């Protein structure tokens, strides 16, 4: 991910063709995911040592709520970022979707209608973003900063300083229910989605197209990849994931305020980048994002157990975000300086 130097750049190193390939085992050992996994295991051990309550299965189960909803969106966001786009409006999509569901719940609709509405509104928001970026050709970062204000703004118009409560009884399952033993519905959904996105990105033509677009959209277009269409689908998927996350979050909280999920977009992007996805597009993996989700969830939970306030954890997450991308570059700078000037 650190080799994003363009050809023709004066800093581009000469291509060095090795005598033999490094063995697959060695490659795995040096990969980003392995490093991240080591960090995850380290945090797990530190947590287990610093609080006697950490290893309790029910506590660990509760801890998964810290990341499952964000991670669902992070999977779709990872694909979007790999393709060279970004969606900063996801948290606002959650707010709008939740508001729509709250409105319907007050009008007396049942659980199936609420879920259908949640998925629909999420997809519509995603489609709107997709239209702005692929239809009108707007840069995604500004277009989604715009829709970020717009979507949450609509929630504020509907709700003002009020809140929707009184969801039907069965609705609480999505955010509070258990599928088996300590495994929550959210966690199972997270695992299923992780596998689904892993297959989509790493085993299908669609996934190949996503990488191709991220590395060089023009070349991808000339190779017959429908760039606009793939990007549109990715925005649609991201909206859908935000809709699903909104269902889970609303169900878990049992109420909707317009400020729901405020600031999540930055945490989700952090999760994706921490997972080794290059913010410049073209590289990254789903397993990386999954491990990053665990790292962030465990840091939050472990710090919570030893009474560290949430805002201090955010310092840690911020430093983690910068250092994980800075360290590989420092290391490669250090190595090249040692060899040739």
């Amino acid at each position, binding site marked *: 991910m650190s080799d994003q130097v363009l050809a023709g750049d004066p800093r581009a190193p000469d291509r060095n063709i090795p005598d033999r390939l490094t063995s697959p085992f060695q490659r795995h050992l040096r990969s980003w995911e392995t490093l991240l996994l080591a960090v995850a295991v380290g945090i797990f051990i530190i947590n287990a040592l610093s609080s006697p309550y950490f290893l309790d299965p029910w506590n660990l189960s509760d801890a998964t709520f810290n990341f499952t909803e964000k991670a669902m969106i992070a999977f779709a966001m990872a694909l979007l970022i790999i393709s060279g786009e970004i969606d900063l409006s996801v948290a606002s999509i959650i707010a709008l979707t939740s508001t729509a569901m709250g409105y319907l719940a007050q009008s007396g609709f049942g659980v199936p209608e609420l879920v259908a509405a949640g998925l629909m509104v999420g997809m519509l928001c995603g489609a709107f973003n997709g239209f702005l970026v692929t239809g009108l050709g707007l840069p995604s970062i500004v277009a989604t*900063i*715009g829709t970020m*204000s717009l979507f949450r*703004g609509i929630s504020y118009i509907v709700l003002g300083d009020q809140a929707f409560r009184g969801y039907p009884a069965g609705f609480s399952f999505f955010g509070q229910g258990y599928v088996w033993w300590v495994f929550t519905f959210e966690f199972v959904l997270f695992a299923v989605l992780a596998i689904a996105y892993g297959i989509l990105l790493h085993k299908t033509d669609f996934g190949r197209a996503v990488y191709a677009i991220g590395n060089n959209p023009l070349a991808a277009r000339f190779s017959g990849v429908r760039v606009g269409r793939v990007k549109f689908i990715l925005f649609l998927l991201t909206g859908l994931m935000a809709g699903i996350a909104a269902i889970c979050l609303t169900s878990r909280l049992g109420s909707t305020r317009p400020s729901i999920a405020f600031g999540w977009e930055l945490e989700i*992007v952090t999760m994706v980048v921490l997972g080794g996805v290059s913010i410049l597009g073209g590289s990254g993996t789903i397993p990386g994002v999954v491990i990053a989700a665990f790292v962030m969830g465990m840091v939050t939970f472990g710090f919570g157990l030893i009474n560290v306030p949430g805002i201090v954890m955010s310092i840690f997450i911020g430093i983690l975000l910068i250092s994980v991308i*800075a360290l590989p570059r420092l290391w490669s700078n250090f190595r090249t300086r040692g060899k040739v000037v």
Partner: protein
Amino acid sequence: MIQLLKSREAILAAAILVLIGLISTRYSDFAAPSNLINVFNDTSILIMLALGQMVVIVSRCIDLSVASNLALTGMVVATLNMMAPGVPVPVLLLIAVAFGAMLGAINGVLVWKLDLPPIVVTLGTLTIFRGLIFLISNGEWINAHEMTAGFKAFPRYDVFGLSLLSWLAIATIAAFFVLVTRTPLGRAFFAVGGNPHAAVYTGIDVGYTRCLAFIISGAVAGLCGYLWVARYAVAYVDIAGGFELEVVAACVIGGISIAGGIGSVGGAVLGALFLGIVKNALPVVDISPFWQLAISGAAIIIAVAFNARSERKKGRIILKQAERLA
């Protein structure tokens, strides 16, 4: 002359005049000079931050940490004022600018020396700076009675009918106008953003130039940190939360291209004024202030769509500017 009329600044200025006209039909006193002075005063901080953000965006970067920088610097000067009430305000002002510039330099050096993507770096420092405020303040508020009278009075001090806050905004506008249009550094920002590779070959150090842009943006954010805390007479962890997006929005509405290389001081100022007028007009025309967010969102989308169309027509803007100069 026709070119001037067709320019984005002219269109945006016309849009603002139409907006003021529309508001006046529902609330006739809105266009009164005294009210407009109030609106300008209320928008001063946004204008200054938008100008700082402009040079960063023009050099093809983005600074999402401005609001956190503002809040952290504000907390630092407020704490200093509480601990050592004897320190005069001009010294605090200098400290605020220097401290903000230092925070900006952290972003700048990471972008320059390690070649990290600016959006990731400033996303990181956004949360770090915000967290540091908590560490400094322990989550407590610094309230009006803990600040000295001089500390609070400075931005409100009246000079020729305008507050010092407004005068500072005007001075900042003038300074940025000179910087952007009359200095080599100003040209370098545009060159770096318009085409970084070409900039290297003309002898401009891309990373260094970007670093300077971040330092400038940070210094402005630091100055605004003091002004914000002094004006509202309170400092706590969450001040100006999310304000960075409003600053970026002002720039985008002002026609500054997120892809770098395109933008003007007038655009940034008008973009900020547009948002400021909407914000101040909603309560007086009896629209719930909860509409503000959706309106600014819609304005951003329309402005971006508009920018994208005109950029496509004009092509590479750095050449365009050269033509205009010739």
